[in-house]
């Protein structure tokens, strides 16, 4: 298979002119962007909130519990959520019905919900992981800064706003950059949670590559597509590095 005839840029041009490629790029950017945003804010809020807890045992237990989903594979997490979100026997819809009495929502079949489900489940899964990175950053903040702030009469919120957040900036940059590099490569999650009715809204670049290369055996086209993904990732990483002025803080 490695000795196919030289094709020039034919594979690239086929990918470039394939509307499905651009559709899946859009999906990737929307879903990936959502995961990037929510997957950054949620663990940050969580870490700040955990940091305010003085009870050490509770803090440790909470951290432990919140980390569990990150350990599991997407097949397991996907399987759990497909069940939880199912319209007739799923816990989410049962709770919604009891509380608000609305009709069951077909979370995994409606195109409005499909992308939200991807973003929310990804956040649910990885929140505990990023939270630990933030917490580790918070621990290294010099305690005398808080002391000085308290002497100046800063409230707890002011301490968070004017000491913790600015001091956490370099950790935030690391976490954001690490998450950015993962945006374009999401695959397992979508492959597990997708279904024919939501596929047009959620099929991402790696799913496109998989279908081309493995399902349709168009290895050349798939390789061209994955090389483009690689280029996009590099470009995105460079842009984020520039935007966050990553090098300046290190």
């Amino acid at each position, binding site marked *: 298979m490695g000795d196919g005839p030289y094709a020039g840029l034919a594979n690239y041009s086929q990918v470039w002119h394939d509307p499905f490629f651009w559709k899946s790029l859009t999906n990737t950017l929307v879903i990936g962007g959502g995961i990037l945003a929510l997957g950054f804010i949620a663990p940050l809020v969580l870490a700040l909130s955990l940091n305010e807890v003085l009870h050490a045992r509770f803090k440790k237990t909470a951290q432990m519990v919140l980390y569990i989903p990150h350990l599991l594979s997407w097949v397991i997490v996907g399987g*759990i959520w*497909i069940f939880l979100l199912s319209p007739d*026997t799923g816990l989410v819809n049962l709770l919604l019905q009891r509380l608000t009495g609305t009709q069951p929502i077909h979370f995994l079949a409606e195109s409005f919900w499909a992308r939200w489900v991807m973003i929310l489940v990804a956040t649910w899964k990885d929140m505990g992981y990023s939270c630990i990175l933030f917490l*580790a950053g918070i621990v290294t903040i010099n305690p005398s800064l808080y002391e000085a702030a308290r002497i100046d009469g800063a409230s707890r919120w002011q301490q968070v706003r004017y000491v913790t957040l600015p001091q956490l900036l370099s950790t935030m940059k690391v976490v954001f950059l690490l998450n950015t590099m993962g945006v374009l490569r999401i695959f397992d999650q979508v492959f597990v949670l997708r279904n024919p009715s939501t596929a047009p809204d959620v099929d991402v670049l790696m799913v496109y*590559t998989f279908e081309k290369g493995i399902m349709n055996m168009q290895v050349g086209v798939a390789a061209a597509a994955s090389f483009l993904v690689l280029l996009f990732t590099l470009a995105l990483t460079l842009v984020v590095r520039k935007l966050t002025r990553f090098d300046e803080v290190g």
Partner: protein
Amino acid sequence: MMGSERFERLGWRNKSFDAINLLFLLLLMLVMIVPFLNVLALSFSSGLASMQPNIVLFPTEFSAEGYRTIWESLDLWRPFLNSTIVTVVGTVLHVMLSSLAGYVLIHPHVPGKKAMITFILLTMMIPQEAVLIPLYVVNKDFHLINTLTVLVLSGLVSGFSILLMRNFFMGIPYEIAEAGRMDGAGDFWIFAKIYLRLAAPGLATVSLFEFVGRWNMFTAPLIFINDSMKYTLQVALKSIIIDTSSVSSNYLVTTNVKMAGIVIAILPLIAVYPFVQRFFMKGIMLGASKE
């Protein structure tokens, strides 16, 4: 007077803030825990009870029939065995090779050391997903498709593990190695008897990362394996739990069976979780500070 009143008010505000904060965290913990309770309860319910639209946190009509069905009738023991083999063999080899490579990189006078480290860092920049198709082609040429060997081989060494092990080795004073050499010890002896022992937490970290990663490995078996005898647990579960219709058309997979599958796949991870607690956090930080 004024002062103490202000203090009281602040105290009250502090307390209510703490209460709300605690409530928020408890709620989030529930969001994490309840799905698992639901899964566990359903897996121990009878087939019929598990299909009822009820909010279930305790088994109804307790039975282990779900476990029997998935293990024996659906032959989950085979993918479980495959996953165990791939995970154990892969992890052991990965840890051995990565620590050997890491050991090479701590010596001050290794020719081309800088170039090697740069090259290793470069491999970490390339997402594994982006090279899956070329990997598929190469593995096919080596006739490795549909073997468990290919699953052991994929990700056999990683830049991350090499540099992590190097970081741990760097924490050991180099004088110890020099002293060993002075006493006539060979490099392999120094590596095995001194470095591996002193860097035991590092070994544990890399082993755990690798164990969890390999147990959860999905993309590689999905692409490299299509013989159902060689399926790993994740791929088998994907077809049982998620595309149920493709398992068999005349056999309805009830919810308790699916949930039993999920519990079985989670068990080994729960077993290593206490150790994860001890070593992961440190490892994550070392890994993140590398970037």
